[in-house]
Structures are given as C-alpha cells and as structure tokens.
C-alpha cells in the first residue's frame, strides 16, 4: 500500500471571466459590433478551452495557485477559508470533475465525492429507484446496493415511503434518503463539501456522527465546511485557503483559532476623531466598542463576561438628564435585550464635553452566535431623541468546540446561563418533604 492516498502537486486553476466591454458611442459602431458579435462570441467560447498556465491575462481569474499537499491513508483533512477562497474548486479537481490548469493530483484508491447530497435524484422515480440510481452514480455496483439496501433504508427512516415517488417526499425525507446512500459508500477517500450543513438539527447531528464513524473506520476524509464544529470533530489537520493559496496549515484546533481570531473580531470597534465623528445637532459619537472583560482573551465565549463602551461628545451648553440605550439583536433578527441607563433608576446629568458609558454583560448569559448592536440612541430628559445610530457594532460569541472542551460544546437556545441546581439522589421520601 502506498503511504499516501492523495498527492496534490503544485495545482493551479484558472477561469475565464467576463470583462466589461466598452460602450459604443455611435449607432454605426453599435450596429457594426452587433454584426461582428458572432465572431467575437466564437472566440470567447473557444478560449474557454485553450488558455494555458503561462498566460497572464486580465480576463483570467486564478481560483487556485500552486496548491500542494499530501493525504495519508486514513488521515482526515479539513479545508477552510472565506467564500471564494477556492475550496470547492480544489475539491472538484481532486474529485476528477474538472481538470487543473497546471500541476497534477495523484490518487490511489477508490474516491467518492459528496459535493452535494442527492446528486442525480429524479423526482419522478420512487425512493427505491433513486437509491439505485444515486448509488451507482456515486460509484457503487448494483450488487453492492442490493446488499446494503436494507441498511440504507433503515438509516434513512423512510421505509414506509420507499416505493413512493420522491416528488411526494418532504425536503427532509429526501435529504435523509440521499444522505443514507452516501453514508454507505465504502471508499478509501471520501471528499465532502458542506453537505453536513443541511437538514434539521437532529439530522445534522446524525450525519456528523455517521461521518465520524466512517473516518474512524480507516477512510481518509477531506472536508470543506463553514461549520467549524464539523471540521473540528472530524479532521485532525486543516488547511486554510486564502485567495487560492494555502496560507495556513496545521493541527485543526490551532488553524481554527488563528482563523476565527482573524475574522470574528472585525467590527468590534469604531472610533473617530472629534472632527470626523458622526454627529447630530447636539451629539457626536466618538467611539463604540465591544470587548471581553478580561484583557488578553482573543474571543468572547459564552462563559466570558464582556462589555460595551460608548463615548459621546455633547455640544449642548445647558446641563440636562441624559439616557443612553442600545438594542442587541442576534443573527436571526431577534431582539435579545435592550440595554439602557434608564433602567438603572439613576439620573445622569451631563453638560458640554465627553460622556463615556460602559455596560458590562455578566458571564454565562448569552449563547454562542453573531450579535449586532442594531440601535444606539441618546435621549434628553427621557423623551427628546438627540442622537441615533444604526448597526454600529457586530461581534461573535464563539461557541465552537475548540474553546469549550469539557463544556459540551454548542447547545441550542438563545441563552446559555449557568443555573443553580439542587440535586439529590437516592433520598427517602420524607427527606424530600
């Protein structure tokens, strides 16, 4: 047995992109270019086939540049990166769907790629027919499917409808059946793109568990996912792609920490000088920031306290009552809470000059997720709106596996409070009373 199952060697891939054409100034020029367009179209279509590696042309887009790595027998590799980093292109090359423009990929072993759940499903066919069609598309033989058919149907939980046309299935049933077929492939290398991110939560969990099982069975796995949890549970090593190049490689936890650290703390602070600050008639906003309460912590976790700081500059001369209020929403546009100095039952009198507020959020309150300060406003004398700012901050509470070992990882729910429990076991009835 060779010591690696996949070798990616200096792979680059270019795509031809459309360039904007110059606009025609005269009717004559427009007609001429219209008449000439078949020739031009033909040249463009023909070029789809004929560009080469050495070419440095304006209309070539390099989706991948000089990517190399090796994957050993039974190893698991995650590929992460922002949208458009070239992850899917790389998987397509390894899966033999598209050819690289330069370099080569060598594969030893049976490869199955799952770039989509239910490839080739036909809605007019029954579940049974689709299992066979989809299974053979993924590379199983008819005999193999015969043997595994019962297990596949059993796993999918759609036995009752297996002879019903798939177009009458619910989306969930369709997904479950499609995933089940894929789960019973027995390849040497499994290439998975995002498929774990479909379906409802129980199904996602079930499919992830199944994938982990497959990986433990000795199959090499390459996984592309935006779901850090899946990558962390499934993959030992991870590659970070940025604009088509490998910019980080190493143990998954380390790469993930560097990657998430890089993207989550992006819009957590906004600061202006007095001259440039956004302003109303009476108020300027100097600074808005959200940060972990304890300095040195790179990300906010559900167990961390964190704080908002808002600094204003007031331009009114006469002293008055001031209240500062903000709305915090989650990524599904739910209002999580309203934070307001008005709720403290204290009066804050202010005059001309800087005005700084810090609002501390206790630890063990919010669950993981992406949060946005959708509204920030200042009232004078509890009624007069003197300043308003929308969508000022956005930040993430990281509930990923890497940061929560021993804390059961992500659970559902908007809040993740630490609650006081009183638990007694094996007690007599009288003591309960």
């Amino acid at each position, binding site marked *: 047995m060779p010591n690696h199952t996949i070798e990616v060697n200096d792979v680059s891939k270019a795509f031809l992109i459309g360039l904007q054409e110059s606009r025609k100034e005269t009717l004559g020029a427009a007609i001429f270019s219209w008449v000439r367009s078949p020739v031009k179209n033909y040249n463009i279509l023909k070029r789809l086939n004929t560009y080469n590696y050495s070419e440095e042309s304006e209309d070539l887009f390099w989706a991948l540049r000089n990517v190399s790595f090796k994957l050993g027998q039974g190893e698991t590799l995650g590929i992460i990166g922002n949208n458009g980093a070239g992850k899917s292109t790389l998987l397509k090359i390894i899966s033999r*769907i598209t*050819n690289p423009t330069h370099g080569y990929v060598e594969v*030893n072993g049976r490869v199955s790629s799952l770039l*989509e759940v239910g490839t080739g499903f*036909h809605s007019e066919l029954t579940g049974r027919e689709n299992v066979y069609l989809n299974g*053979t598309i993924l590379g199983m*033989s008819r005999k*193999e499917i015969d*043997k595994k058919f019962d297990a596949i149907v059993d796993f999918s939980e759609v036995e009752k409808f297996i002879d019903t046309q798939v177009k009458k299935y619910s989306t969930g049933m369709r997904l479950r059946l499609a995933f089940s077929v894929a789960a019973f492939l027995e390849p040497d290398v499994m290439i998975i793109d995002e498929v774990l991110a479909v379906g409802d939560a129980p199904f996602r969990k079930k499919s992830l568990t199944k994938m982990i099982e497959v990986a433990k069975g000795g199959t090499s796995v390459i996984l592309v996912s935006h779901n850090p949890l899946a990558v962390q549970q499934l993959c030992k090593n991870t590659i970070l792609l940025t604009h088509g190049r490998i910019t980080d490689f190493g143990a998954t936890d380390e790469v993930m920490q560097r990657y998430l650290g890089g993207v989550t703390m992006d819009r957590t602070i906004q600061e202006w000088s007095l001259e440039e600050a956004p302003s109303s008639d009476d108020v300027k906003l100097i600074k808005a920031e959200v940060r972990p309460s304890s300095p040195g912590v790179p990300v906010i976790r559900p167990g961390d306290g964190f704080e908002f700081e808002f600094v204003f500059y007031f331009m009114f001369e006469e002293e008055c009552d001031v209240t500062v209020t903000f709305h915090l929403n989650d990524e599904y546009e739910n209002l999580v809470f309203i934070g307001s100095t008005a709720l403290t039952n204290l009066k804050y009198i202010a005059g001309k000059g800087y005005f700084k507020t810090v609002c501390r959020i206790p630890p063990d309150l919010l669950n993981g997720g992406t949060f946005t300060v959708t509204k920030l406003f200042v009232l004078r004398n509890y009624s007069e709106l003197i300043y308003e700012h929308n969508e000022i901050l956005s930040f993430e509470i990281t509930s990923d596996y890497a940061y929560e070992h021993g804390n059961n990882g992500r659970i559902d729910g908007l809040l993740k409070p630490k609650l006081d429990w009183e638990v007694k076991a094996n007690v007599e009835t009288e003591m309960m009373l």
Partner: protein
Amino acid sequence: MNIRGSDMSISRRPTKFRIEPGRKWKLLDLKELAYYKDLLYFFVLRDFTVQFKQTVLGFLWAVINPVFQMVVFSVIFGKLAEISSDGIPYPIFSFAAILPFNYFSQSLTGASGSLVGSASLLTKVYFPRILIPITPVLSKLVDFAIAFVILIFMMLYYSISPTWNILFLPLLIIIMILSAMGMGMWLSSLAIQYRDVKFALSYITTLLMYTAPVVFPASLILEKFGNTAYLLYGIYPMVGVIEGFRAALLGFKPMPWELIAIGAVSSIILFVTGGSYFKRTERIFADVA
C-alpha cells in the same frame, strides 16, 4: 461499528489515476466502462421510466407518433404527390423507413441536449461522461422495439412475408446505433460548448428527414442523378439502413449492399470521430456547463 465491509466486489474499480491538464486520452476506457455498466443500466432505465410518467396514454405514444407520421405521409406523398414507392403499398413503404429514422432523429435530439441537461451531475460527481449521450441512444431502442411490433401487424395486414435477408437486420440495427451514437457524441459535446446547437437542431433533423429516403425510395436518386450520385448518397448511413429495412422485411427488391457497405464505413467514421472529439473536450465540460 465498522461499516467497511470486506466485500471484494468493490475492488474492480480502477483505483490509481492522475488528474492533470494534459491531452492524453484513450478513445474508450473499456475497463472503466465495464465498471460503470450498472450506472448505464440505471440511466437507461431512468430515461425510459420517466419518459411517459404522468401521461394517460403512456406507452401508446411510442406507437401513435410513427403511425400518425405514416398516415400523413401516405395521404400527402402517396396519394396527392404520387411519389413512387417501388411497387410497395405506400403506408408500409413509409412505415418501414419511419421506424429506423425516428429512432435516429429521436436519439440525436435526446443526445444533443443530454450534456446540457445533466449540468448538475457534471459539476458534482465523476463518472465516464460518455455515458450521458449514450443513454438516450440506448433508451430509444425500447421505443423502436414497440413501434416494430406495429410494423409486424402491418406486414400481416398486407400479407407481406419477410425475406431471408431479415437475418441481416441486426447488422442494419448496429449501423443505425453506431451512427446515432457518433452523431450524438458530436452534437452533445458541441452543444455544451456552443448553445447554438440547441437552436439549429430542429433544422438539422428536418434536413436529415427529407434527405433520407423516408418519403421516397433511394432508387429515385439513381433514376434522376445517376450511379455516382447514388453511391455518394450512401455516405449518409441512414440511406443504407432504411433501404435495407425495406428490402429485408418487405421483399420487392434485392438488398442494396453497396449502400449498406458505404453506410457502414461512414457510420464507423462518425462513431470514431465523434468519440474522439468527445474525449478530447470532455475535460472542460464541467467548466462550461
């Protein structure tokens, strides 16, 4: 639980390969095709199962279509235009031609759109791309067989018994399939790169229909344009196939071996060039789909 069984049947799949931009290709990787024969089977089954889904008449459409054409041709070309039919009753004369020609043109239509229609497969999973244009060419054989039953009934009705040349029918059918596959591979790989093919297709099939000896006998070409033209006419492989069908099934005239021989050669050329063009371009299908 270990889900990796020790099933040896899975090891037949070619397992070592290199993916690179080069132009190395084989005309047909038979080992790989043998591995994917089950997929081809299910593709054909799918095409055929889906074809008449949610219709009232179902399989009858495979009958109605050629019968309708036969009636129209018999009235217009047989009765009104009085085109010669080599002394055969015009309805069965035209039906014996409609049968192979419809197979040919339906295969072309199916094959030429097949790659474009399978874009979602092409961009998601690997399997030999050649299966896609081959599938409609094979699934239309079922329609062909159904319509063939009608021909048998018509022969009974006209009390026409086939000649011994019916033994050569499989040869004609092979020529017919080879040309359909050859054209199918050409058109499908052109169509995915140049969508113009989709618009040109209806003209192409109409042209193919009127240039083939469907509504007239090939002997008319011999009569009007001479022997050289007649032999050149045979380059169009369906000429030999159609005239061969008439001779073998209906008698009335000897087998046109010269047309069949020329047609066989050109169908092989069509198949080989179509296959190699397909192979040469298939690596970009996913990029242009």
